[in-house]
């Protein structure tokens, strides 16, 4: 018998079985999360399933992030209904302005190494950065899991992603993941787990890991897992969380595929509208004008994203005329960090706009919306037609440095020009 992957080990442990790829297992869940996007339907299913109480209410959270703040009466009222349900059942609420649930989960010790977390949102996979098996489901599955405290899962095959070498200047984790999405395609990891490995991992900070895990779902993955190491420990400690129970893959674990990325060969990348996997090096990108630059989302709204954008923005006095440049911090914690360190003021002085911590403009549910014919360059994870609320806009995805370079030029620009 060969060894096990991280996914096989965590699902074995949560189901008290010795399970392998392909087994369907019923697992205990450590934490559940819904968002204001998925919670209204979750409540509806919960009631139709005759749910009386939540099995593990103190470890069940809902994040008011997609409508943060609510842009209209209907969504504001949805928030009231969610708050009332949460209070009645004793579940935890991340309030408007606390940030994107996924970031808050990581910052509050609700997703720990070795845990199983289920979320009614596809980017729940983000906590894989913390060695946590985290996966997205719909509202009906979440309601069933709230009632029963368990979920059925098929143990996934695992693709090993070996990251080797060091990135050049102005090459970001976003460029790594975009090139991976191009290699694997939008469904290259469907139903599977990604396990990130290789000698370059040690050099990736938690923000980079969270971004890679987050965009695993852009390849269809069920989860994107990292091993726990000193960086994981330091992150958890800095946020006052305990260390969890890290799970490592066995050296003879079986992988269905291994993909190696040589980071030293990587140039800045850009995803063209309207698919995440249509990726080219920025040097081959079309010479398009840019009217909106967006730094935000659970992929690219962390403090380091703003810092890296500023490192490029500083090369000029102000952004190009006619460009709207927006930053939406991923959490309240990040907002206070960038306020204290002065980067927020610097960004505003350059011509930037700040939105409430949360999902912001990511999927057109609140925040600024691009106009017809507008080209947006964004640090987000998705660029589908209509994603930011207008099907007549075009969205390019790139690193914060590439976004900043494009803000200065008013056109798609290569950050290496601002060395």
């Amino acid at each position, binding site marked *: 018998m060969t060894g096990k992957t991280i996914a096989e080990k965590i699902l074995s442990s949560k189901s008290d*079985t010795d*399970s392998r790829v392909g*087994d*369907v*297992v*019923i697992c205990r869940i450590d934490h559940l999360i819904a968002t204001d*996007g*998925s919670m*209204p*339907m979750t409540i*509806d*299913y919960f009631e*139709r*399933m*005759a749910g009386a109480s939540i099995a593990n209410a103190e470890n069940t959270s809902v994040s008011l992030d997609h*409508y943060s703040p609510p*842009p*209209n009466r*209907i*969504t504001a009222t949805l928030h009231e209904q969610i708050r009332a349900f949460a209070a009645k059942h004793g579940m935890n609420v991340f309030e408007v302005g606390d940030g994107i649930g996924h970031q808050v989960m990581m910052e509050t010790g609700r997703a720990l190494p070795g845990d199983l977390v289920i979320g*009614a*949102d*596809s980017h729940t996979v983000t906590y894989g950065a913390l060695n946590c098996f985290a996966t*997205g*489901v*719909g*509202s*009906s*599955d979440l309601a*069933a899991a709230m*009632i*029963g405290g*368990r979920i*059925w899962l*098929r143990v996934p095959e695992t693709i090993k992603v070996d990251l080797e070498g060091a990135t050049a200047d102005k090459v970001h984790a976003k460029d790594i993941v975009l090139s991976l999405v191009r290699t694997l395609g*939008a*469904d290259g990891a*469907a*139903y599977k787990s990604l396990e990130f490995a290789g000698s370059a991992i040690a050099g990736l900070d938690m923000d980079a890991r969270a971004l890679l895990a987050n965009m695993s779902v852009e390849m*269809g993955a*069920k989860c994107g897992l990292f091993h726990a190491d000193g960086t994981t420990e330091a992150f958890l400690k800095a946020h006052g969380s305990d260390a969890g129970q890290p799970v490592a893959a066995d050296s003879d674990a079986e992988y269905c595929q291994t993909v190696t990325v040589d980071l030293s060969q990587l140039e800045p990348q850009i995803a063209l509208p309207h*698919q995440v*996997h249509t990726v080219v090096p920025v040097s081959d990108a079309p010479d398009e004008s840019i009217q909106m630059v967006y730094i935000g989302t659970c992929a690219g709204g962390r403090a380091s994203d703003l810092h890296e954008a500023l490192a490029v923005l500083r090369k000029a006095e102000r952004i190009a005329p006619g460009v709207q440049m927006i930053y939406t911090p991923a959490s309240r914690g990040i907002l206070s960090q960038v306020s204290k360190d002065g980067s927020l003021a610097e960004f505003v002085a350059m011509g930037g706009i700040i939105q409430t911590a949360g999902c912001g403009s990511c*999927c*057109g*549910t609140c925040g600024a919306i691009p106009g017809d014919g507008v080209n947006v360059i964004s640090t987000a994870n*998705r660029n*589908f*037609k*209509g*994603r930011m*609320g207008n*099907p007549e806009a075009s969205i390019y995805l790139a690193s914060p440095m590439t976004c900043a370079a494009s803000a200065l030029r008013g056109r798609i620009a290569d950050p290496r020009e601002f060395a």
Partner: protein
Amino acid sequence: MDTLTIEGRARLFGDDINTDYIISSRRKRDSLDPHVLRQYLFESIDPQFAASVEPGDILVAGENFGCGSAMEVAATVVIGADIKAVLAKSFSRTYYRNAINNGLLPVICDTSGIAEGDRLVVTLGDAFSVRNETSGVGLTAEALSPVVRTIVMAGGLVPCFQNHGGFPDLPST
């Protein structure tokens, strides 16, 4: 073994149809009612579709149907439009689960030979198959796991909870 049969007209889509294309996230702000949302079904990529859909139509797509967001309205809006089955070469895992849970039958099969408007008969019995009455071609669909089959036969997760008082028992391994 119980048998489920679904018949209808093929409505063709391509690869990588994401949930935002099925129903735009911003429409959810105003209503979650599938009967309201059905008028916006596929509006970003095929504005004519919603008006042309007939009860019993069957969606037929390529790879990775339902990728992107896990939002469940992308499954309930299809049911709201009286569509009972989706055939695709593959599904995103969240769409697959959401479809099953809501009584929309996801059928994994080789859809490449199906043309717009073909008459299809999907049968889930001892075997799981699709017959294309227009072309005369028969297809085998990928078998459902026992737990999934139980949920499908119950008509979704809600009736399943009502019938079983919770999850169906899993076959012991």
